[in-house]
């Protein structure tokens, strides 16, 4: 092994934990390319919160690497990664004026990164242009970076991005595979790649990298922490090597909490529930926040499907009232117990363990008393089965609330 390879291995081990082969990296280089997005206005303050969560490494621009170098001092400090090129490709209308044509240039060499104390450099690799000449120049630049890194033992992390006019919804996943492989062939030591959306296609990407670690990038801030974590779990299951998350973390409500949870998933093998500190254990109820309801009726649709009735919202065990033109109110089982008390044959009983109303069909005499007395009108009669449709809280994890896009329905702990 050449000396530079020895150094490379040591530095790489600061980023990717050699024990589990995984990493939690925070990207904080947005100000360099997108502008002052939320979360980077005061980068030092944000990074201090992030560091409390224990990231393995943090990616910043060369300027910030110099400016905020003190954050990387000390034995427990995260490793420093330097963004060594610049591009305007991500600058769509969300951030500022969209770029008219996409450009990319190198801004720091491996040696510069070494002087800054970096444990690795990160550069883009683009494919998908209409112009083949530009594509070739990117490969040329990629190879030059790889040589520079090899010479001084600097880990070389490539962020391959398929984009441009020829990318379609049909070829995207396939192109991620192609571009990851090309980056590996050019000498990448690790890859930061977009998640392809599902574990099956992502496994193909990991396979295409032939042992070079593939970490997923986060992209736009997800609506909920849970969604972001779900894709991480899927990518790990498919053989991924962890995350390089930027906006998911710098724009998180509490970056420390988010990062701690992410470490739990990536390094400690926790489930999402465990990582989010299980949030809720024990019996639950559904909390309604009617102001959040947008009337999409996803709750009603998933309710009937998950109770084996396929899709027919009018048979849901909850309902959304519509008052024209735009006021919606969801009604759900509040576990008030009136139906249980009123049922003349004890066909409805309260499950003490999981806290829901259970129907015992053999005891039902079809008197429909429950439908009459339900104050929320969420018990309906099903003519097909000739039985009442009663909410069973999906035995502890109500799907209506899980699928609600606006938290108009929310799972909360049950208190009697």
């Amino acid at each position, binding site marked *: 092994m050449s000396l530079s390879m020895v150094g490379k291995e040591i530095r790489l081990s600061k980023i990717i934990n050699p024990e589990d082969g995984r990493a939690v990296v925070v990207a904080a280089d947005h100000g360099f390319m997108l502008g002052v997005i939320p979360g980077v206005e005061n980068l030092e303050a944000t990074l201090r919160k992030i560091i409390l969560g224990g990231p393995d490494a943090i990616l910043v621009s060369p300027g910030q690497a110099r400016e905020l170098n003190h954050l990387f001092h000390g034995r427990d400090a995260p490793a420093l990664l330097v963004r060594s090129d610049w591009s305007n*490709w*991500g*600058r*769509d*209308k*969300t951030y500022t*004026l*969209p770029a*008219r*044509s*996409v450009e990319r240039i190198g801004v720091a060499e491996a040696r510069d990164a070494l002087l800054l104390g970096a444990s690795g450099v990160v550069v883009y690799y*683009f494919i*998908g242009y*209409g112009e083949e000449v530009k594509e070739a120049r990117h490969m040329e630049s990629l190879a030059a970076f790889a040589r520079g890194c090899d010479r001084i033992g600097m880990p070389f992390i490539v962020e391959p*991005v398929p984009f*441009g*006019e*020829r*990318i*379609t*919804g*049909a*070829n*995207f996943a396939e192109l991620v595979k192609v571009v990851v492989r090309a980056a590996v062939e050019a000498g990448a030591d690790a890859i930061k790649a977009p998640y392809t*959306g*599902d574990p099956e*296609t992502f496994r193909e990407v990991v396979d295409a990298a032939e042992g070079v670690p593939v970490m997923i990038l986060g*992209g*736009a*801030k*997800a*609506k909920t922490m849970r969604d*972001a974590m*779900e*894709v991480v779990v899927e990518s790990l299951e498919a053989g991924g090597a962890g995350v390089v998350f930027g906006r998911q973390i710098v724009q998180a409500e509490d970056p420390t909490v988010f990062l701690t949870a992410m470490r739990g998933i990536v390094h400690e093998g926790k489930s999402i529930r465990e990582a989010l500190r299980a949030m809720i254990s024990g019996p639950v109820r559904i909390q309604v926040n009617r102001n959040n309801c*947008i*009337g*999409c*009726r*996803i709750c009603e*649709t*998933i309710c*009937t*499907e*998950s109770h084996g*009735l*396929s*899709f*027919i*919202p*009018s*048979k849901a065990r909850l309902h959304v009232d519509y008052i*024209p*033109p*735009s*006021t919606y109110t969801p009604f759900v089982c509040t576990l008030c117990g009136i139906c249980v008390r009123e049922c003349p044959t004890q066909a409805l009983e309260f499950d003490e363990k999981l806290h829901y109303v259970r129907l015992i069909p053999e005891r039902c005499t079809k008197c429909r008393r429950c439908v009459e007395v339900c104050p929320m009108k969420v018990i309906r009669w099903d*003519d097909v089965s000739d039985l009442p449709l009663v909410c069973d809280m999906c035995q502890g994890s109500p799907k209506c609330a899980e*699928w609600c*896009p*606006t938290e108009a329905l929310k799972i909360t702990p049950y208190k009697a």
Partner: protein
Amino acid sequence: MNLEGRGYTGKILYADLSEESFKVDTWDERIARLLLGGKGLGAWLLYKMTEPGLDPLAPEAPLIFATGPLTGTITPCSKFAVIGKSPATGTIDDSYSGGFFGPELKYSGYDAVVVTGRSEKPVVMVIVDGEARLEPAGDLWGLKTEEAEAKLSERFKGFKFAEIGPAGERMAKIASIFSSGRCAGRGGLGAVMGSKGLKAVAVKGSKPVRVADPERFERMAWIAFRSIRMSETTVRSLPRYGTANILLTINEAGALPTRNFQTGRFEGAEEISGEAFKRTLWKKDFACSLGCNIYCSKIAEFNGLTVDGPDYETIYALGSNLGLADREAICKANLLCDQYGIDSISTGVIIAFVMELYQRGMVSEKDLDGIRPLWGDKEAIISLTEKIGKGEGVGLALQEGVKRLSEKYPGSEGFAMHVKGLEMPAYEPRAAQGMGLCYAISERGACHLRAYTAGMELLGYGGGADPTSYDRSKVQLAIDRQDEKAVTDSSVLCFFTLYGMRLKEVYQMIVPCTGFNYGSVEEVKQLGARVITLTRLFNVREGFTRKDDTLPRRCLEEPLPEGPYRGQVTHLEPMLNEYYRIRGWDEEGIPTEETVKKTGLKDIL
């Protein structure tokens, strides 16, 4: 094999209003596999049932309400399609609407309803769990859309409706079909409905929609929803500022059509931006369709008025394109369009045309019932909108659309902003070459919703595309977008879902839903291309060829005066050549024998 239980009901209802008769028929798995549903199914039915050259307002002309395999399931944003021959353009017209009518139609047991014939007296078609009948609608005739729907709701509890306003009743060529405030807006299908004496369709059903592999389908639907929850556009831009979130960026690019496309920069853009509406008039967001988690729809409330919208297109049509920067006035004009049941884009472009005629001294107040149509004059704009909506006075001539109007004013063709008779939407094609191609080749005339290249050209989505280029890769971009859109239109899903998920996610839902073992997502994209060729075959049979795939002279010859793309015109011809070549159509834009065979259409037509 039967389609029932695989995202389909497997049944189509054929209603003949002249005979007051109904017939139910099953449809073929072969057709479903090739064309999916929605747009594809509707285009196929229309092709088979329409004699070439048929008057779109004749009793024999079919009006088709079609759903797709994903409609009514747990899928993001399920919509329904209305398909017919457009009285405005004479082409095929497919238009889409939110509201909950589509899912309900499926719960009532039908994938589609095909309406032909003409009732002597106004009727409402009532469909309950597969049973269909006609009921008199004399009391509803003449009512505005929302009044009609309120009355219908009293009479038919728990039903969902699709109805027309007064404009549809009198067969105005810009009349739309409405459903709880949403509409299948473009191309005048409301007039087709009116020509049949059909005021409304009321549906109610209790039959579940079943899918082939529920477990996998639910998993794939979750992934689809999740990807929508993880995209900037669908999580923040659209929910916060509605479709008008793009207005300022489009204006900056000099692509916001202003004063009848005389320029692409509007000095009042700030005042009519999504941000400004959000700050002042919009009070509530809502999901316009089953499963929508994007909620770009907004409700404006002021002075006791409640208005659904306005959306970006309406803000352009009734705002910048008329030189109007008054938000409340735009809302009022929008409300009039909705009440009388007319397309707000076409209405705005018609008024803009009148304003330019006036600017040039080609009309006077005397021709316009005393109205002085000055740019930005809100009283004039509201009066003209009302006259068009009511078909009153000069409104009767205006409701015919810009194309027919310009025929009366020699020398006005160059600034009559339409393609094939459909008025132009809110992207200046001189500032985004791809959009010029999209307008020219859309099967229903100038439409931004058939192949939307503006996202990449002007908004920087997906890394962006050079708006000034008109080369092969720009044409390929348009084709890719058009194919993908044809798939969502046949599914039937809202177009905005593709800002969060990709076609791959749609494919991943379609397979477990239908049980069709499409080999790859590319195969589903090819299905989109097949649907496009099918709609083209319809238009070709109606006599449309290359000469009709064009743009107003203003776009082709007058350089854009402002903005970063100042001095540009649209370079349509080279793009058309390339487009036809890639599609496998000949130089005249006619699909070749080989293409018809290769796409599998030959066997089913």
